[in-house]
């Protein structure tokens, strides 16, 4: 097992953050947020991976065969559900922002400047 998945996970987290910081469009901001989150999928799956193992479905394989760790896959599923919820909510807010502010550039949202 190489270190590649861990490196890519770290890269996705950082580049996603940079995307959120630098974005001039809220739709892009939300997409960058999902990139940040995809780093968690990759890290979890990388941790559970075993070379030469099959998917953790034990119905039709011999009980002795090598399986990848099913726990992390369950965690990823939960993670995906959360992502779907939050992304849907955020995109709805962005649509509403477009209606009310007439713009989706975060710099044009000026209601909360101190």
């Amino acid at each position: 097992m190489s270190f590649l998945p861990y490196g890519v996970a770290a890269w996705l987290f950082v580049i996603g953050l940079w995307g959120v910081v630098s974005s001039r469009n809220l739709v892009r901001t939300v997409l960058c947020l999902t990139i940040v989150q995809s780093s968690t999928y990759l890290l979890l799956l990388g941790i559970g991976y075993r070379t030469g193992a099959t998917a953790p479905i034990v119905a039709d394989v011999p009980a002795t065969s090598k399986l990848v760790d099913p726990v992390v896959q369950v965690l990823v599923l939960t993670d995906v559900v959360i992502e779907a919820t939050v992304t849907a909510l955020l995109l709805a807010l962005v649509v509403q922002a477009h209606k009310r502010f007439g713009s989706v550039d975060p710099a044009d949202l000026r209601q909360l400047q101190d």
Partner: protein
Amino acid sequence: MTHLSALPVLVPFLAGPLLVAVGHSAPRWFNDSVGALSALAATTICVLLAVHAAPHPFPYWVGGWRATHGMTIGISLSIDATGAGLAAFSGLLVTAALTYSLRYFEAVEGLFHGLMLLFMAGMMGFCLTGDLFNLVVFFEVMSAAAYALTAYNIEERAPIQGAINFAITNSIAGYAMFLAVALLYARTGALNMAQIGAALDGRHADPLVIVAMTLLFVGFLTKAAAVPMHFWLADAHAVAPVPVCVLFSGVMVELGVYAVARLYWVMFAGPLGPHADAVRAVFAGLGVITALLGATMCYLQRHIKRLLAFSTIAHVGLFITGVALLSEKGLAGAAVYVIGHGLTKAALFMCAGVLLHRFATIDEYDLHNRGREVPIVGVLMAVGALLLAAIPPFTTFMGKSLLEEGASGAGYNWLIVIYIAVSAVTGGAVLRATGRVFLGWGESEGPETPQHQAAQEDVDEERGPREHTPVLMVLVPAVLLVGALVLGLIPGAVPGMERYAAQFIVHANYRAWVLHGAHVSLPVLPASHISGSDYGYGAIATVGALLVAGLGLTPSWSAPQPRSALGQRLRAVVVGLRTLHSGHIGDYIAWWSAGASAIAGICLITLR
């Protein structure tokens, strides 16, 4: 009794979606009563659990998947007095907020009640769970409901922006925690907090563990609004409906501090035991920065909800220092303070809600002298302000005194100055607003802010001023304030909290009762007494609050023209601080990343 353990989560989890599904066609009384009664039922069960677990905490294994030989693949709810007590406190505030909502909203659909119950289910699970991954999932559940509640007034501009900032910042915090869970699972093969703690014991604190710890703590401290991850809080509080602010400030933010304390003592106290001094210094420093920035920004606000929000940031800073002292006195002080502050802040937001409901504005200067129509609310706000300043001998004072004793015990005497200053400035800022609004003291024209201008362009036509304030909207905050006044005075309450704290901070205890079903008893402690110097500090803070309020209400002082070099430099600092709070999500995440990297870097250097 133990089989009731899952109900505080299940009841709101079932009732919430029901109200979302049928609430729009159901009559208002149905939504109101199902909402408030579910909250009340879940709260009552939490109280029963807390009482039952007080002598001997116990785990509840969902589906009967118990631990054997200290190993488990099941999920536990780990019920002890601290967790169940905090859940009961959250439930109490949800019930109070829903009761207040009966009159606060003229028209409200089941969606609101449903989201409040989902929010409550998340908080309950967060307090009770013994599983690290569950903790993060409950964090996400309560956060998702909270984002939607923040944007409840979706037709106005500011709530949209506030909810976007809140949702993005807290989601990133959540993802950081997912990474940490994955790293800890890779290192220990466990997800149960007690089992992770056992696996980490006796190990050197290697970089992977420290990075995982930092990611977890940064995540929870984002919820707790520690500087520089705090920007979302003021925005969310300024725009969310008042009953929602009650929960945000009263308990949600404090849950972040609770999680840090829980995880530190259950999981990381073993490997980091030799580095306790460094941990103390790092997190006390973070708490102090948070407290000072919160207090400064609090004093500068003219939007009363935003003012209260920054006061919450300041107080959370104090709670962080309390936990960071790593002693039972510090932790007990933080716990008592959280209860006193939560009740007080909830009541203050409800008072602000009365002003918003009646006058359709929440600007301190626009409300100048108009509060005379509702003098009783002025009395409540003044009492709340004094409690915020930790006036002796009430609950917040008890908490602050314990923090002060903990600070001197750990050799951090200088923290006492911070405690007094933060109490005086935040209490004074609220007193200033009270004096201006209800007595007409001070000027009626204040310094113009971008936010005030923006708010005036975004006036909602449908919500004009009203002639009448419902009695219930005054009664609920009054009851909460009475609670904040008397709770700390109940004989045995504060010493009891010290004993629970002493149990909480013994690293091996939690594991013994969660994984091995051991009976863990409360330690016996010598009763601590509030000393004369504590009363002295309390008096200084109260007088300080009155002086700060007086300063803010004196026309020549409220907007001083800086003549000296020092005055000009101070002014530049103030302008700089304000500019940081730009409302731009990109800026916020840049600060978040800088803060997270800085904390990780400092931890990696000092905790090796």
